[in-house]
């Protein structure tokens, strides 16, 4: 069956597309909405905002989460802020400026129409969240405060200390709780989606495992919305949560949803460095710290003095020197690569030689410790709790870590995947960030998708389905359930010697070393072979204890690692076939004399969308050409 790659972008100038679309989109009337069941998987910012908005409109919403409560989703950990072009500072911000920054930030590898719509919806998000009681920082006059993030020259970031994600998620979570209380949302907690059910080509439900009883169950609906986040935990060490995984989107991919730009993974420049093999996660230090902190390494290799003893003239503020216009606030891909370069050259600090300083000495001197504490206090405390060192006394030591996936399920303008009735929102889709996401834009995208876009576009696909109900007694549900049970039995019955954790760690090393901040064809080919080997080790020598009918964290991890192995392999193949550099995707073969990325718009100004064939056939790569009407792609410079 051919995949339908119609992106359904409305005609007309970019600034009118969304309003034109809304005028012509098919709607479901308020009286009919309660007869539609909509399944939402995941309750991060995208899932919780979509579920609560759809329920408030009158749809019957079934929410599935593997957490115990919707408030645990990893959006909660977002720290620094959320962008919106309110132009409160009168510093030249506008919808067009936010659109331009995001397009340029993504190195011209995202869809213009989607990015423009995101910028248009950004201001309403702030209005919505303030109305919900989200406590955004206020100035002394009572007006909303702003700060700045990487890759932009305006102050458009709204924040709640270093816990913006938490406060935004609590706003969405509270709205969701209200809908649960009203009976319009049915919550299924501790339930992990393991497959998608299609009936006559359309998404009609999911198969999930009750993680307490181990029971395999199914749920049916007229639409399925995946808001399950990214697959960055494939790298094992990442800033993702321990349970973050790619299973829901990967299973949907295997049922026919195209997977777009899988190799576009953001490596965040400011994280607490890796300290050992036992380490279970890497902790992010918000990008907002680069507003006032200065990044440097000693000019001398093998420096042994304490940072405070190194005089100004012997400090290499490499971001300020290399990128005078943006300085410490260059975008994440640029800052990460620069950190890797100075450490590879031997200027890095710490035992491993892989960390750089982020220094607040000057900011504390100029602004006072109490001002800095008010802006970043919880981040300073978090760092001190983990490392035992106080950033008030000595610089943070930081190094890049895997953080966010720009790639994800391919979606059209309505946020529908290539499977009719299946939608992907938030980090789970690919649409808005191209080859690099700007800081404080993921929260914006999640909430734009969930509060404003999906609730207005989902009706378009539901219209022809009125009263065409399918329930879980349909034979397709029994068939898919049997396949899921077979898979679990297969995993449980291997009884070999390798734990899922050990295989996951080895997969992570392959991806980090060969599909991370710097990539080349020969390493990528090697990684694909190594991952093949890990896959065969997984399916022939896996060790799991306990039973499938009980709480079994080893089994949960095994099921996720099985999918990470397949995702990892596709990431490497995508990185290999994209024979150019762009944004986060730095192919060593394609760089200019200064070591900056060299894009190839002639051959690669497209989205790579991969189509699953079957177990024995490799995925097929399709191209969706990107059209640039409003902004012509230019060399991306932050100098």
């Amino acid at each position, binding site marked *: 069956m051919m995949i339908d790659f119609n992106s359904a972008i409305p005609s007309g100038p970019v600034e009118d597309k969304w309003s034109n679309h809304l005028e012509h989109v098919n709607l479901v009337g308020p009286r009919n909405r309660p007869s539609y069941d909509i399944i939402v998987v995941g309750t991060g910012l995208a899932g919780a905002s979509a579920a609560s*908005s759809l329920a*408030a409109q009158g749809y019957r919403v079934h929410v599935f989460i593997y*957490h*115990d*409560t919707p*408030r*645990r*989703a990893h959006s*909660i*950990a977002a720290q620094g802020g959320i962008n919106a072009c309110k132009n409160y500072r009168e510093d030249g911000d506008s919808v067009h400026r936010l659109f331009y920054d995001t397009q340029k930030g993504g190195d011209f590898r995202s869809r213009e129409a989607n990015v423009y719509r995101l910028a248009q919806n950004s201001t*309403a998000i*702030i*209005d*919505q969240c*303030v*109305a*919900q*009681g989200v*406590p*955004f*920082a*206020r*100035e*002394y*006059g*009572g*007006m909303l405060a702003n700060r700045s993030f990487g890759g932009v020259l305006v102050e458009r970031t709204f924040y*709640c200390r270093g*816990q913006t*994600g938490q406060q935004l998620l*609590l706003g969405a*979570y*509270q*709205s969701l*709780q209200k809908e*649960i*209380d009203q009976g319009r949302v049915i919550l299924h907690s501790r339930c992990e989606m393991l497959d998608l059910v299609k009936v006559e080509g359309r998404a009609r439900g999911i198969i999930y495992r009750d993680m*307490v009883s181990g029971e395999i169950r199914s749920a049916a609906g007229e639409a399925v919305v995946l808001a399950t986040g990214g697959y960055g935990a494939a790298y094992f060490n990442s800033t993702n*949560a*321990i349970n973050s995984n790619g299973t829901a989107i990967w299973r949907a991919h295997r049922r026919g949803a195209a997977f777009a730009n899988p190799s576009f993974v953001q490596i965040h420049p400011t994280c607490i460095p890796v300290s*050992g093999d*036992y*380490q*279970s*996660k890497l902790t*992010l230090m918000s990008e907002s710290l680069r507003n006032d902190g200065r990044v440097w390494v000693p000019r001398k290799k093998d420096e042994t003095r304490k940072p405070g003893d190194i005089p100004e003239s012997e400090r290499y503020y490499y971001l300020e020197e290399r990128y005078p216009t943006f300085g410490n606030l260059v975008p994440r891909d640029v800052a990460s690569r620069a950190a890797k370069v100075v450490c590879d050259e031997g200027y890095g600090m710490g035992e491993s030689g892989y960390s750089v300083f982020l220094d607040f000495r000057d900011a504390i001197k100029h602004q006072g410790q109490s001002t800095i504490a008010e802006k970043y206090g919880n981040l300073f405390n*978090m760092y001190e*709790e*983990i490392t*035992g060192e106080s950033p008030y006394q000595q610089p943070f030591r930081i190094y890049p870590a895997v953080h966010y996936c720009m790639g994800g399920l391919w979606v059209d303008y309505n946020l529908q995947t290539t499977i009719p009735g299946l939608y992907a929102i938030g980090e789970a889709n690919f649409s808005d960030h191209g080859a690099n996401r700007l800081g404080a834009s993921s929260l914006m995208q999640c909430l734009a998708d969930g509060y404003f876009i999906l*609730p207005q576009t989902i009706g378009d696909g539901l219209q022809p389905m009125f009263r065409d109900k399918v329930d879980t007694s349909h034979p397709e549900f029994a068939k898919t359930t049997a396949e899921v049970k077979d898979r679990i039995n297969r995993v449980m019955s291997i009884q070999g010697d390798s*734990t899922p*954790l*050990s295989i996951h760690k080895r997969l992570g090393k392959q991806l980090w070393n060969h599909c991370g901040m710097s990539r080349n064809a020969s390493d990528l080919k090697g990684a694909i072979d190594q991952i093949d080997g890990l896959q065969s080790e997984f399916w022939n020598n896996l*060790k799991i*204890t*306990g039973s499938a009918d009980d*709480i079994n*964290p*080893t089994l949960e991890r095994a099921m996720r690692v099985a999918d990470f192995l397949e995702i990892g392999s596709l990431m490497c193949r995508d990185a290999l076939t994209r024979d150019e550099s762009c944004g986060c995707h730095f192919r060593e073969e394609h760089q200019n004399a200064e070591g900056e990325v060299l894009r190839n718009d002639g051959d690669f100004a497209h989205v790579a969308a991969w189509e699953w064939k079957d177990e024995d056939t490799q995925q097929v790569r399709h191209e969706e050409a990107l059209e640039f009407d409003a902004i012509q792609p230019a060399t991306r410079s932050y100098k």
Partner: protein
Amino acid sequence: MSQDHDQKTITVSVRVWRQAQGEKGGRFVEYEVADTPLEASFLEMLDILNESLVEKGEDPIAFESDCREGICGTCCLVVDGLPHGPSQCTTCQLQMRNFEPEAKITIEPFSTGAFPVIKDLIVDRSSLDRVIQAGGYITVHSGPKPEPNSVPIEHEIMEDALDASACIGCGACVAACPNGSASLFTSAKIHHLALLPQGQPERNTRVKKMVEAMDDEGFGSCRNYAECQASCPKGISIKYIGRMNSDYIKATVLDTDRRGSMHAT
């Protein structure tokens, strides 16, 4: 903190509460965790122990965690008798360098009447969700809203609201309370929303419904032990309980109109 700087690892023994699903009671099982890196976190020490149990073919200890950066509120262990252990942080932020070599550490679940044990160290805290469902929100739809700067809010009030809404819903306050009261959790949400102009229309119904939900869920009543504040990883203050009580009394003496919401008479 008394570690020798040259020493890179620590050996500890842990007494862990093990309880099979569906069983009423459980028992402590002792394990030795040798050569744990000092740089490891407390939960990473348990990861190391679990990995060794899986390698030996034994059932690993069931415990929950997710973000491992102290913000999601998933992790919930009682360490040496204290919810989240001796430091004022979440369990996931506890570090092994804060334990003595050869330490004997006791690990139990956050178990109280309203938090039944599911397995080993995993408890069911959905009762906290139901307290929020009763009224811990401001009712809004996703349509157009007034311009936020049209309603200025004082800096200090916003900071106070943010102090209250910093609650991560971990339930340490309940686990620490001799009465198993959820007053700190509930009052923090009530205080956050009552401070803001947006929270005023539902203020009276909210406090009434949330306090009643708290009682219905089987949480105990507050007797001012203040153990909750001492164990809160986010430093939530018990002064919010006073606010909740005064708002609750006000709400109960107000008349209920025919739609169920309350106005001053």
